[in-house]
């Protein structure tokens, strides 16, 4: 698909595709005159380079899906900017430019049962994407291209799948259609919002492998959003951990897993069920205040649950600081 684009070796530092700078999104709670705001995302910085899979990990309500929707321009940021190949998205207002961006940075959704319209055949989304983003193709070309794309996401024979209705496919197959829709736009970066969390365990790996294959064969980058740290480790190069709308820690996957610096990352890792490891989590560690994201004010948002919290944590919001090579955490205490 993107054969004309040279695949950069990952060791070389390349220009980022997408960069978020202090990305912030608040939602007003209650009526239009309300003064209360939900801080869904606060001051998030992130960089995604070519040929890279970045995992954004967090629990529900951590703001990870909001980040994906900000990057996909579903929401407008309250503050901060998103830079695509050196250009701020805020300056790209013409329909042509917006379409161009939508094609290069498409999104794959969480719910395989909700992301396909039940009234159309599954070819609908793929065909619409081809029509919108590659108007030079004839109807015949589109048909050919759709079949090629379906093959590349592992749906064989493609013409049979294209003429089916969503309810005739399994969850895993539907999710592959979701990826096919994204691929039809010839993307550089796919925003994948929990693409496997609603799939059966036995077919999850297949979809994760598909992401890895697409990166290897077509050089496509991914922002993989998930609550499952083990699957993040399985596919991703870098890991970003979010808590209550802020980034807690980020770094190379293996380094973060081997040396988790932020107390939240440590808690998260200890909670991952692993049949081969002993349990290391006290039963009552969850019975604490849920994170306050409505007008949270200054201070670390994890302090209510943090065993190492000091006075400074409630007064000053910790900033990201490097603790190991390419590995940062937002914590006053961590070393």
């Amino acid at each position, binding site marked *: 698909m993107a054969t004309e684009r040279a695949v950069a070796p990952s060791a070389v530092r390349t220009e980022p595709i997408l960069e978020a700078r202090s990305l912030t999104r608040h939602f007003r709670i209650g009526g239009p005159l309300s003064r209360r705001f939900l801080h869904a995302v606060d001051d998030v910085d992130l960089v995604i380079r070519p040929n890279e899979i970045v995992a954004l990990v967090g629990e529900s309500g951590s703001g990870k899906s909001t980040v994906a929707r900000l990057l*996909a*321009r*579903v929401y407008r940021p309250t503050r901060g900017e998103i830079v695509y190949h050196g250009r701020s998205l805020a300056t790209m207002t013409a329909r042509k430019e*917006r*379409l161009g961006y*939508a*094609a290069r940075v*498409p*999104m794959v*959704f*969480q*719910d*395989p*049962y*909700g*992301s*396909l*319209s*039940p*009234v*159309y055949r599954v070819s609908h*989304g793929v065909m*619409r*994407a081809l029509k*919108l*983003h590659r108007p030079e193709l004839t109807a015949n070309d589109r048909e050919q291209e759709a079949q090629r794309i379906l093959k590349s996401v592992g749906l064989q024979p493609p013409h049979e799948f294209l003429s089916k*209705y969503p*309810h*005739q*496919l*399994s*969850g*895993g197959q539907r999710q592959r259609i*979701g990826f096919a*829709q994204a691929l039809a*736009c010839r993307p550089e970066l796919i925003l994948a919002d929990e693409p496997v969390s*609603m*799939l*059966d365990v036995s077919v999850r790996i297949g979809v994760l492998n598909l992401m890895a294959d697409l990166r290897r064969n077509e050089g496509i980058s991914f922002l993989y959003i998930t609550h499952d740290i083990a699957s993040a480790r399985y596919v991703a190069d870098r890991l970003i951990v979010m808590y209550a709308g802020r980034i807690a820690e980020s770094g190379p996957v293996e380094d973060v897993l081997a040396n988790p610096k932020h107390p939240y990352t440590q808690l998260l890792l200890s909670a991952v069920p692993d049949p081969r490891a002993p349990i290391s989590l006290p039963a009552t560690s969850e019975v604490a205040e849920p994170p306050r994201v409505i007008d949270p004010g200054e201070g670390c948002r994890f302090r209510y649950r943090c065993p190492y919290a000091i006075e400074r944590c409630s007064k000053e919001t910790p900033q990201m600081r490097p603790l190991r090579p390419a590995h940062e955490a937002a914590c006053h205490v961590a070393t």
Partner: protein
Amino acid sequence: MAVRVVTDAVPAEAPPVSTRGGVLAAVGLALLRSRKATFGLTMLAFFALVGLLAPLIAPYDPHALLFDPILGPSLAHPLGTTSFGQDIFSQLVWSTRQSLLLAIVAGLFATLISVIVGVSAAYLGGLWDHVLNLFTDVFLVIPTLPLMIVVAAYAKSGGVVVLIAVIVITGWSYGARQLRSQALSLRNREFLEAARVRGERSLYIIVFEVMPNMTSLIVAIFLGAALYAVLAAAGLQFIGLGDPNDLSWGTMLYWAQANGALLAGSPIWVLAPGICIALLGAAFALLNYAFDELSNPALRPVRRRKS
């Protein structure tokens, strides 16, 4: 095919249902299975046929004053004659045309307005929603009957067009409210978000993504509006707000009332158009229920197997 994965309550894992063919085929099949729908459709088809073939069915000119007044039913006049000596059966047959046409046209326009207002309000959200909602609310709370009478009396000379306009103006708001709430529940479905992210324009999304998913509700609303139109038109014509020279069941009632048909000993003059109105209304109502059941599985009657 895997069973639906739902994060919320699943009462019990429902077994997969695999239907072949499209949604239309499924809807058609469901309609054939529903007794309500079959009955309604048959009746509607009957009236449509009568309206269409009126010149062939009606034995006499419905306006012509050919006969003796107030004849009882006989072979020559199955329903007798009016006090002007017109054949009631011929009048009834010819009247089917206007009554049916009025119902369908008024129903269509009312539905069109409710779709435009309801779906746009839900999909566009924000300020648009507030304004359109306010608009709908105003029409919802206006007392319909007085408004209808005032408007119809004010524009008396307009005939059928005014009648349709009055019915549309007073009849769209209920459907708009229903459509808005269903569109709201669709609004956050991921396939709409997928279309937005793909770069589709709002108009495309409303027409090609939102509306096809609401077909059965839209049809149900049309049927409801048509039912309302049948009754409202009959009512307005009965109190003399239509054009009395038109041929419709409502005007028949108007003339029957004006000439004291019941006192004059010709109950059929009143009963025949009355029953027709009731039957046409029932046809629309039954179809409406059937489509409601289609779009809302919770309303479907549960058929239990005896254990």
